């Protein structure tokens, strides 16, 4: 019976086989597209006293004709290893001494949606490298730019600005806040300068 079925449907079988091959190829493409292996780049940039990037801007206002803003994406925005390193460095370099685990204390909170000096990676890079009035020290020349970018990525992950699969999923120490992975994406809001900063 089986053989009769085969003889009768030879043409249909041929078509069925090519259809099956097509489906397998499509399946392989769908599966393999997901196989992007994250790279760990260990040859970072050397530190220098000056930041090597074009000036970051906090607002579109400027004298003269308008210029197109050049947005630079941080190199670790899509790199889970870099974000995890940033998290380690955040505590190692005592960012947590003032900003705590993102809730703020001596320094402003980092896990909310308010940004005094901009939320884009290059803004945060400049904040760390150059410092800001009223207490934020300048770490340019002290921290390797590559490590600053890692800290930038981690700081952004605190308010959910990074992909969930890139943000870190566990703490090395006691759990003091919910995981960065679980942070809701906060739409960055430009905050006014704190009154203490305006007096300067």
């Amino acid at each position, binding site marked *: 019976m089986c053989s009769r079925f085969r003889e009768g449907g030879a043409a249909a079988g041929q078509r069925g086989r090519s259809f099956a091959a097509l489906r397998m190829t499509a399946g392989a493409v769908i599966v393999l597209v997901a196989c992007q292996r994250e790279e*760990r780049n*260990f*040859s*970072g*940039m*050397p*530190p*220098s006293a000056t930041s090597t990037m074009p000036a970051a801007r906090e607002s579109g206002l400027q004298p003269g004709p308008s210029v197109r803003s050049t947005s630079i994406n941080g190199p670790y925005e899509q790199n889970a290893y870099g974000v995890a390193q940033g998290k380690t460095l955040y505590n*190692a*370099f005592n960012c947590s001494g003032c900003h705590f685990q993102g809730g703020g204390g001596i320094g402003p909170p980092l896990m909310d949606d308010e940004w005094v000096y901009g939320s884009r990676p290059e803004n945060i890079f400049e904040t760390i490298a150059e410092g800001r009035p009223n207490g934020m020290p300048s770490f340019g*020349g*002290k*921290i*390797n730019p*590559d*490590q600053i970018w890692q800290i930038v990525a981690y700081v952004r992950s605190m308010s959910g600005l990074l992909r969930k699969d890139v943000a870190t999923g566990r703490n*090395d120490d006691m759990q003091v806040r919910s995981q960065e992975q679980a942070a809701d994406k906060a739409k960055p809001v430009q905050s006014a300068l704190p009154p203490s900063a305006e007096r300067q």
Partner: protein
Amino acid sequence: MLSLLQQSHSVLNPSSPQTRLIDRLWDAMYFVSAVVFVLVVLALLLSVFRRRDSEAAETDPGQERSLTTAVSIATALTVLILFGFLVYDVAVGRQLTRGLGKDALQVRVIGHQWWWELQYRDSVAQNWFTTANELHIPVGRPVALELLSTDVIHSFWPPTVSQKRDLIPGKDNSLWLQADTPGVYRGQCAEYCGQQHAKMAFLVIAQRPDSFASWLAAQRDTALTPTTQPAIRGQEVFLASSCVMCHAIAGTPAGSRIGPDLTHLASRRTIAAGTLPNTRGNLAGWIVNPQSIKPGTRMPPNQLKPADLQALLAYLETLK
């Protein structure tokens, strides 16, 4: 380093009372097992080549009985030997973990990715100091180690002088060791702990009590303030660049505990946890681009001006 590698650092070459106990246990198990193995193989060969009278064996009650006796004796012997090993093993384990007297030297060992932090304790807190990757111990005196980890699980294992013990984050482990003869013994992290696990080695340096005491006194000192020119500039470079973010030098404002303490760097034989001999050239290569030597290590590349680098090296060489 080369002369180190010529020595045997195998578990079968014990240099301490503890490892000798373990070695004797191993020898006993090895020789008894070898004898049992030979007997089993002989019995097997005998059964294969024995002439078989097909009918007679099943009907002869005498042969049946003698076989039963032989099997019973073999079973009883096996149980006895295994039980003997169990008792011996527990006895060795008890001797390895016995309590120590008050004269034991206290050292805290902290595992990091990928180096060893060693804190020497004393009843006077001012005498505490921290060093890295080189465990100096006096000969003939037990040393109590407190084993901690700050990141992942590591394992402390100098095969010729001590048993192996894990360093587990969040759990205090302990271990004691003692060396009989002065010498340099190599140790290695024995639990996979990440990319540079293989380059996480350390040295156990067993010294006579008098030379150990002088080493201890030297380590308790803070670093000397440099007096000659390139070294003075080198200290400025150290304190003004990224070195100071992670490393401590006692006697200077540098006090960060993220990387190895460099107060007496020049007195150590290797850099980067047993990766390279501590020479000026190796140190220069390590400072400029550690990622080419130990990819993934927590130390970032540092580009210094050539004059600054030479000054920094001159300063680091004064840290005896």
